């Protein structure tokens, strides 16, 4: 076998690396695809907040012996729906409401962890992911939840498109606007749960926002943006894993760093919307 192939195959001789690969590929596809809506609808702060709000759910599930994703999912969906409800009231601005819920829930989560024995290790795993500790059951769950998210995005493609592009048209066409908005929030909560083990609470936002933002600079149609976003996500996951293995960096951070670097390159060199091409245009035109 050629040396470079040896180099490529080497990490995946280990079962845990192979499982990590699967998990990161699932995250690398699902997160960036839903992320296109997060970017287009300006939901980045909400996404970050939801990720942090999920922390106490994970801890409580751990304490009462439930599967962690179940606890995360329950609190995530509840939080998503209540933020949606708060946001529809006029007396508190939505971002402030999100901030209150987000910081409060996160503090509760940290407090709950701190009374546990293995505080430091557990907190680090939840904050930054533990890709190499993913079990086969975890992967099955991620795959199932990921399939649900992708199916929903596919099934409601044109409705989500109209809702995101032109909310007034959505209302004129009598689309069920509140239902669709809530569904997007629930999908967001599910995706965060899926990503928890791969990149952790602190970095989920990067997988939601970074590939989709790079894709937005390259695409002029939403389906293309979704494909590119998923492609960038998968690329980041793969390269990040190698980086993690050979440079001994925490896997979640490695994946996010690759995605960020990718975004930087696109930001500078994108054919139409990149910095360089607009500079060139200005000078030539």
């Amino acid at each position: 076998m050629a040396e470079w192939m040896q180099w490529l195959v080497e990490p995946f001789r280990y079962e845990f690396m192979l499982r990590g690969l699967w998990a990161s590929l699932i995250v690398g596809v699902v997160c960036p695809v839903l992320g296109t809506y997060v970017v287009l609808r300006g939901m980045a702060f909400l996404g970050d907040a939801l990720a942090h709000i999920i922390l106490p759910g994970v801890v409580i599930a751990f304490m009462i012996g439930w599967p962690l994703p179940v606890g995360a999912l329950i609190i995530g969906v509840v939080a998503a729906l209540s933020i949606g409800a708060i946001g529809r009231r006029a007396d508190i601005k939505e971002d402030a409401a999100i901030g209150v819920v987000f910081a409060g829930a996160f503090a509760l989560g940290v407090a709950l962890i701190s009374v546990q024995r293995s505080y430091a290790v557990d907190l680090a795993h939840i904050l930054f992911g533990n890709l190499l500790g993913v079990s086969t059951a975890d992967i099955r769950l991620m795959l199932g939840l990921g399939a649900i998210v992708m199916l929903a995005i596919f099934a409601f493609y044109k409705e989500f498109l109209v809702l995101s592009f032109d909310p007034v048209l959505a209302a004129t066409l009598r689309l069920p606007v509140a239902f669709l908005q809530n569904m997007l929030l629930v999908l967001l909560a599910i995706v965060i749960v899926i990503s928890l083990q791969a990149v952790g609470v602190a970095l989920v936002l990067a997988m939601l926002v970074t590939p989709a933002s790079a894709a937005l600079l390259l695409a002029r149609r939403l389906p293309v943006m979704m494909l590119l976003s998923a492609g960038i996500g998968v690329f980041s996951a793969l390269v990040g894993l190698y980086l993690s293995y050979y440079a001994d960096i925490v896997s979640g951070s490695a994946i996010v760093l690759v995605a960020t670097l990718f975004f930087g390159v696109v930001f500078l060199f994108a054919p139409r919307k990149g910095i360089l091409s607009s500079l060139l245009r200005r000078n030539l035109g």
Partner: protein
Amino acid sequence: MAQLITRPPSHDREAPALSMEAVHFEYDGTVVLRSVTAEIQAGELVAIVGPNGAGKTTLLKIVAGVLKPDQGSVRVFGHRPGGHVCIAYVPQRSQVDLSFPVTVAEVVMMGRIRKIGPFRWPSKADWTFVRQALQRVGMSEFAERQIGELSGGQQQRVFLAQALAQEAEIILLDEPFTGLDISSQEAILSMLQELKASSVAILVSTHDLSLANQRFDRVMLLNRRLIAFGVPAEVFIRPNLLEAYGGHVHDLPEAGGTMVLAEPCCGDDAEAERG
């Protein structure tokens, strides 16, 4: 176009296309619209004029169903507008995100998604509809462009095509002429004439009183309440204009009579900001 419009059976053909009965709307305790009552027939081209903050955009949004009136009701062909998709509303163009990755043809297709129904994708016939709508507004060659690459007038025509693709029988346009050059204005006006000929009811808000005077069947003069509603010659008389625009009215002596000139400011309506 007439054969393209399929009418849902629920329509009461005897009833006017649109009737507003004592429509009342308040925002933050301020009365925006006071008891507006008016009827508009199929095939009528009606202008809504009035000063900034007169409630023009609010009235259009209520008719569209985007806002709910606090009192009164809007009837569409004799029925409440809930669930009706035969109304198309073309808002001021500044209100959509023009950097959105969507092509012109896709924007037009958005008008049809209720007709297509949930869990289904546009059929060949739907795309044919979109092509025809774009052709009617003279935008066929731009079908694959991104929406943000078009000029203001072109975007306006695309949103009009969207209303056509929706097979709307009532079309509401909010300030479609603001900031357009004369030829784009004319293009939209002649399109409205065609729609009128296929008995679509059209309601247009505008700041341009002379346009309203010359090119529309009837005019609604609005300032929080309906000051006058009728043919332009009856509406554009000095007492009405004074009531709508207050002191900003001047008389200009002219051959064959007196021309009354009002000074509606040309900025965006303050009310439009509220969304």
